[in-house]
């Protein structure tokens, strides 16, 4: 793994970071676009112990800006994963890998292109959620796991869960898609597009070939700021910032005067240090292109024959991935006769709820996983 200017490698190195490289030429990964990618490296972390039957493995799938470091200190889902927590590492073996196209150790646009010896940049092929999941199945095979106890994720992680349900239904015993959708609406695509335009309008972007020089920090920071607005809710922002003015405001007309401005600028600036602008472009495109209904006009056929139990969770104040989108997933499950549970959690944090409102989430997930692992089936077959 080469060192990258923007990556906070230190944090990653402290944890139990593992890598798996596969798809060496000529057996490259064939992407949905028809292009080939190889070799492919996935960076992943695991927590807990895999049991002798290899029946207690849970794959955690991260969202747009996430990485393999899901649990333990500073893990992005630290509140849900750990001993005695929702994903109980005393009982389960939890795996989380960074997605392909990403910039946190897995192969992406900032990785070295074996053909040129230089970073791919925008020569990196377009990847889809399907491709991301296809890479994950190689990792699961590599770990010798035949059937996962659960696949779980929120937002883009939830899209990967849906993809698992469709692409590898026989490899999962349960699926937990959270605050997600079967396909992006024009509104959701629009927010991503503004983020992409901000990056591409930054003169430092240089058509994506900026590695080794200055990174398009301004553009990426603005993209992250837009993202952050969509992750919160009107009431969570009001509660967090009000109209309070920063005490350390600088004597400049358009400085960050309101706390919310300072917060967004801070989020934008700190994101630039750990994330690659090109990865932001690639991953948001993968999210926008995702459509589990592709070529399937009948909603009832999508999950037909799925034996896994499904737990769908949405959040009342999430306006980026509103509950109706989760209810559509539930509808498709019902039509297919899939054993499904659905709950809309009453939370005010907006889309961020899936990371923050973990108390309710924990209870649901814990009990649901107990039911799955005990084989006790309360539901319809």
């Amino acid at each position, binding site marked *: 793994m080469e060192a990258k200017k923007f990556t906070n490698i230190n944090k990653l190195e402290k944890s139990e970071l593992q890598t798996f490289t596969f798809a060496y030429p000529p057996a490259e990964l064939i992407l949905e676009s028809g292009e080939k990618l190889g070799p492919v490296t996935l960076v992943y972390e695991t927590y807990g112990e895999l049991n002798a039957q290899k029946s207690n493995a849970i794959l955690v799938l991260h969202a747009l800006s996430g990485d393999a470091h899901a649990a333990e200190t500073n893990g992005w889902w630290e509140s849900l994963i750990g001993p005695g927590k929702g994903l109980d590492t005393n009982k389960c073996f939890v795996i989380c890998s960074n997605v392909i196209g990403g910039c946190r150790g897995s192969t992406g646009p900032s990785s070295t292109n074996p053909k040129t010896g230089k970073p791919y940049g925008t020569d990196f092929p377009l990847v889809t959620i399907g491709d991301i999941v296809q890479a994950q199945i190689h990792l699961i095979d590599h770990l010798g796991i035949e059937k996962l106890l659960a696949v779980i994720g929120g937002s883009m992680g939830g899209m990967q869960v849906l993809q698992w349900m469709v692409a590898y239904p026989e490899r999962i015993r349960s699926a937990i898609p959270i605050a997600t959708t079967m396909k992006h609406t024009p509104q959701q695509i629009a927010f991503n597009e503004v983020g992409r335009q901000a990056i591409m309008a930054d003169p430092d972007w240089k058509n994506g070939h900026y590695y080794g020089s200055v990174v398009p920090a301004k553009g990426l920071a603005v993209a992250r700021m837009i993202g952050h607005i969509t992750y919160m809710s009107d009431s969570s922002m009001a509660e967090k910032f009000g109209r309070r003015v920063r005490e350390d405001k600088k004597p400049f007309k358009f400085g960050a005067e309101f706390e919310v401005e300072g917060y967004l600028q801070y989020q934008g600036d700190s994101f630039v240090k750990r994330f690659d602008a090109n990865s932001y472009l690639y991953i948001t495109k993968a999210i926008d292109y995702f459509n589990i209904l592709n070529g399937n006009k009948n909603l009832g056929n999508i999950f037909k024959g799925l034996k896994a139990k499904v737990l769908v969770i949405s959040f009342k104040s999430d306006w980026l991935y509103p509950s109706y989108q989760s209810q559509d997933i539930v509808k498709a499950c019902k039509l297919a006769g899939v054993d499904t549970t*659905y709950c809309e959690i009453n939370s005010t944090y907006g889309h961020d709820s899936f990371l923050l409102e973990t108390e309710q989430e924990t209870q649901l997930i814990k009990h649901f996983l107990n039911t799955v692992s*005990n084989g006790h089936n309360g539901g319809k077959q």
Partner: protein
Amino acid sequence: MTQATLKAEHKIIIGWIPKEASVLDLGCGDGELLSLLISEKQVHAQGVELNETSIHRCVAQGLSVFQQDIDTGLSEYADNSFDYVILNQTLQQVKRPDFALKEALRVGKKVIIGFPNFVQASARLQILRGRVPVTKALPYEWYDTPNLHFLSIADFKAYCKKRNLHIEDSAFIRKNNKIRLLPNLFAEIGLFLLSK
């Protein structure tokens, strides 16, 4: 409603449902009846409930449950998707009982209805005294009742006749016991097993 009253209703409903049937419980509450049906009859159970706290309790018992408003219908289910659809202590609380019952009869081969009898003797006495009744089966004050519709056993029978619904079986409960004599006067709860 007392725990004891609930038990008698549950006993009758469990008796009506054969082993390994598929059951949809509309307004399943905390999942008490569905859990009993699974342990007693190994049914394939699916619950529908609006209350989030109740959903958590159902999931804690290992039940599969959807958070949904029954008033929005059951359009995702094909005709006869379930052997039994249960509306126990639910019908009087939905906005459109006629629509809910129609949907239940469409997706279920058979439908079980349970409701409090509004004209039971002690309720009649309270009305004669000039008060809206508060009884064991109708424990709510006028200002906090979730019940939107008040019906009697006779009303429900008349309704079934009007809608051409076949009553396969019925049972009436007073003080946690099955009764036969003058149910419209004495029963606190009416239970009906309907088919199309």
